[in-house]
């Protein structure tokens, strides 16, 4: 158990190191003189002369050897100093913290809706496989998985905000703003989760202990809720843990559609605006969170199921 856990931790640490190298090298993989490019961005289209460029390189340390730049950068990053955004000149760390709260809200609400809806559909389908309910639920799941979430978001705006006027179109700050984006993320997750839950449950239904329980005359709901569901929880947690990392892909798009001031929109804005310090920060943050989520999901699985403690 301890060995397995420490191996996990070591892997996570290595991943984080690789992530930091990748994030750092973002700037240096750019074609051409990136310092000049960045300065041009900052000067709003005016072109800098050589003296301005040299001054800029010196103040940002771009004239030093690469490994030295990396070690300085890493040291600062570890202390929470991710440099300044080239567009707003605000500290990147501050920008990220501010946006992280918004994204966390949206992701949590979306995930909650997705898990509730998906688990509901999945259980309903698994209980009577082959029934009308099963077909309807799985049909819904397949359709849900096929819908592009940015499009669903736009349709939701058109219908609920513009036509009906029930909810604000977009924006941030009120609970009402959260409803549409969270529902869009939730419904796009629900399809995958429903299929996972159904598959996991059916797997359990085929297991010996369920047959034994049935044979002993345990009631059906008791078999499902006391035996099958707890056992199916392990693979479900593992698989949903993976979905949490992937959840961010949906968040990127949905935040843009709903003008939600989160990390996803920040990433889109900085990629389109070539604000590389912010892109670096986003990569570190998103990557770091992904590594930690994966680690937590692994640990959870280990904690829930002692049998696989050695195997994970």
């Amino acid at each position, binding site marked *: 158990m301890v060995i397995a856990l420490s191996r996990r931790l070591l*892997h996570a640490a290595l*991943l984080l190191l*690789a992530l930091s190298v990748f994030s750092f090298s*973002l700037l240096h*993989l750019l074609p051409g003189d990136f310092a000049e490019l960045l300065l041009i961005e900052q000067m709003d289209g005016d072109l800098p002369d050589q003296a301005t460029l040299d001054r800029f390189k010196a103040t940002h340390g771009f004239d030093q050897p690469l490994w030295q730049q990396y070690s300085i950068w890493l040291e600062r990053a570890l202390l929470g100093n991710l440099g300044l955004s080239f567009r707003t000149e605000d500290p990147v760390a501050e920008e990220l913290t501010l946006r992280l709260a918004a994204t966390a809200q949206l992701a949590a609400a979306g995930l909650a809706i997705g898990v509730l809806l998906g688990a509901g559909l999945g259980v309903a389908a*698994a*209980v*009577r*496989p*082959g029934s009308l309910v099963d077909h309807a639920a799985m049909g819904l799941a*397949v*359709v849900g*998985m*096929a*819908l*592009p979430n*940015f*499009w*669903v978001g*736009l*349709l939701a705006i*058109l219908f609920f905000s*513009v036509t009906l006027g029930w909810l604000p179109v977009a924006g941030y700050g009120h609970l009402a703003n959260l409803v549409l984006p969270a529902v869009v993320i939730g419904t796009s997750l629900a399809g995958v989760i429903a299929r996972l839950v*159904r*598959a996991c449950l*059916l*797997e359990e*239904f*085929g297991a010996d202990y*369920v047959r034994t329980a*049935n044979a002993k005359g*345990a*009631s*059906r709901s008791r*078999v*499902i809720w006391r035996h*099958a569901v707890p056992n199916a929880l392990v693979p479900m947690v593992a698989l949903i843990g993976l979905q949490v*990392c*992937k*959840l*961010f*892909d949906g968040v*990127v*798009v949905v935040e*843009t559609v709903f003008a939600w001031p989160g990390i*996803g929109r920040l*990433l*889109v804005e900085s*990629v*389109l605006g*070539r604000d590389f310090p912010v*892109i670096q920060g*986003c*990569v570190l943050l*998103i*990557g770091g969170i*992904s*590594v930690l*989520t*994966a680690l937590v999901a692994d640990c959870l699985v280990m904690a829930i199921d002692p049998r696989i403690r050695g195997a994970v």
Partner: protein
Amino acid sequence: MAGLAGLVGLVGLVLVGPALAPNDPSEIRFSQRLIEPGAVFPLGTDHLGRCVLSRLLHGLQVTPVAAVTVVALSAGIGSAIGLAAGYTGGWLDRLAMRITDGILIFPAVAMAMVVASLIGIGLTGTIVSLAVVHWAEYARLVRTMILAERAKPYELAARALGAGPIRILVIHLLPNILSAVVVLATVSLAWAILSFSGLSFLGLGAEPGAAEWGRMIADGRTHMRTHPHLVIVPGLAIALFVLAVNLLGDVSASRQGYASPRAKRPPSRKSRKKE
């Protein structure tokens, strides 16, 4: 059989679709912009007077083709790496698997955006970026398959009979692995279509003016309040295509015996009657 028919149908649609377009998809007709659906333009025209239906049909050869390219690239590179890792084993295998595990943890589309910001925004850049983040899925699958297959007796027998590693790989292992790769490919094709159109919607994928579905939605946004069909119709196209691919994937997966929970038994019929 249904799967094959479906596949032929989809490929046929992609090949023939553009030929069915009633008008030139990129011809700009200023005097006929934003007109409602009618006889000449069955789905109306967009903000530059281009025929929406024709653009949709031509779009069949943009998004799906880009997605297929992504899948082909990822499957090719990923399978090769998975094969090499699984077959040689040792430190190479461990290294490759650490890398794939690492890549699989991260949100793919977000990472693809970052890669695209480096290698260039646009059709090629986006396709390559998506492949860069996606190959790991195939590497892991193929490597796992190889390990499973190698443990089977026939491989040992072949080796005992003096077959070289290449021969074993090509004749004995590949056919088995291929079918698994095909199943994964349908899943990732759906993913690639959604991701690519999403990135295009954000302004990273297809070039402006391209009849790309995600891009059409983005372009339609400015006139969404007055002409909602400019947003609704291309989204419907994406959804229907992905749905078709997903169904195809389900069919092929169940035919080959993968991930088919339908075959499993529920809690006994007897207990159901009790209620």
